């Protein structure tokens, strides 16, 4: 370690800015919650903006973009402009303001019709509203029904995910259409096969290492093909190397 890296030395010392950490946005500290959350109007109205998470939070839900469906109670169209403002009601309590910058195509939506909105949640003057990316008239009551059920499903999925991984869940994916995560343990970035092969090779004591056949003997749960593919991957990445011939391997970190 170089003198100047030893810290506490007289003179040059590393200093962290204030208490808020460095401005290194590349560290992923201010990563944005991506994905669209299907939710109720009440969820959005009750949400608070979190500076640290850079998103809106309500209970177990974190979001920036939402999909809601509700009844238009009030519609305001700018006379010579492109901004339409709707107050929508999905009966979960409260009215949600939707701002829609539209082109002139399509007829203006009227009160007492149901619309589906996808957009970004914003705050202004301490009040939330949604800036719409898409607005569509409800095509069928089944759509409203499906949407309401999806609100429950999304919330439930997220809640269960949170319970499984504990509060350390900093994943950005609020992918809520019920798609379960690839929870088949991708540990350390390796698949189970790759991990197993690497661990076997780490136990090597000879310079020759283990042959493919020997590795397969130790890993009866995987097929020879799987082991060969894992070996190819691992050697390509530099975690293992071939020794006497293409059939024998050792782990690089031995």
């Amino acid at each position, binding site marked *: 370690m170089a003198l100047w890296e030893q810290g506490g030395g007289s003179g040059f010392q590393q200093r962290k800015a204030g208490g808020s950490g460095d401005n290194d946005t590349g560290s992923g500290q201010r990563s944005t919650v991506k994905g669209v959350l299907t*939710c109720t109007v009440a969820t959005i109205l009750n949400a608070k903006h979190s500076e640290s998470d850079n998103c809106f939070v309500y209970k177990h839900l974190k979001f920036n973009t939402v999909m809601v469906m509700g009844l238009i109670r009030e519609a305001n169209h700018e006379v010579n402009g492109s901004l339409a403002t709707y107050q929508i009601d999905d009966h979960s*309590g409260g009215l949600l303001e939707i701002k829609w910058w539209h082109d002139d195509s399509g007829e203006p939506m009227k009160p007492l019709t149901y619309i589906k909105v996808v957009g970004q949640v914003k705050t202004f003057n301490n009040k939330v509203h949604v800036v719409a990316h898409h607005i569509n008239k409800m095509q*069928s009551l*089944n759509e409203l*029904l499906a949407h309401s059920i999806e*609100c429950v*499903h999304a919330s439930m999925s997220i809640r269960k995910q949170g319970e499984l991984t504990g509060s350390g869940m900093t994943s950005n994916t609020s992918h809520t259409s019920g798609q379960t995560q690839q929870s088949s343990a991708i540990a350390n970035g390796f698949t189970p096969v790759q991990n197993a092969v690497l661990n076997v090779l780490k136990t090597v004591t000879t310079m020759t290492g283990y042959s493919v056949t020997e590795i397969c003997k130790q890993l009866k749960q995987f097929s020879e093909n799987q082991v060969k593919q894992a070996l190819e991957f691992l050697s390509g990445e530099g975690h293992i190397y071939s020794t006497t011939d293409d059939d024998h391997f050792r782990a690089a970190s031995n």
Partner: protein
Amino acid sequence: MTHHYRINGSMIQQFSGKPVSIIGTVSKIHPSGNVLDLETSDQQHIVVRSSDHIVDVNPGNIIEVLGEVDNRNQIACDTIVTFEPEQTANFDMDMYNQAVMLFQHYPQDYLVNL
């Protein structure tokens, strides 16, 4: 716009005095023009009293009624939402009935402002 509970016929008594939303099929409109008979998603019949004269509604139409359950187990309704025929064709009333019960069972997931 307060939270309206989505209910069916058998839940009416439970929600006496509360704001509710009911989707059902109109079976009859009273001659007075202010009262209608609605068949709910669980095939029960309830009486809906509207504050205004009921327009644009015909027997057989599927509508949404927003109002309060009064002490006679009837709905004092302030808003009737009508739909276009294309919107209600093929509406799965059974599924809706199941969903209504789903929302009751999962208050921690069907998030509302109580």
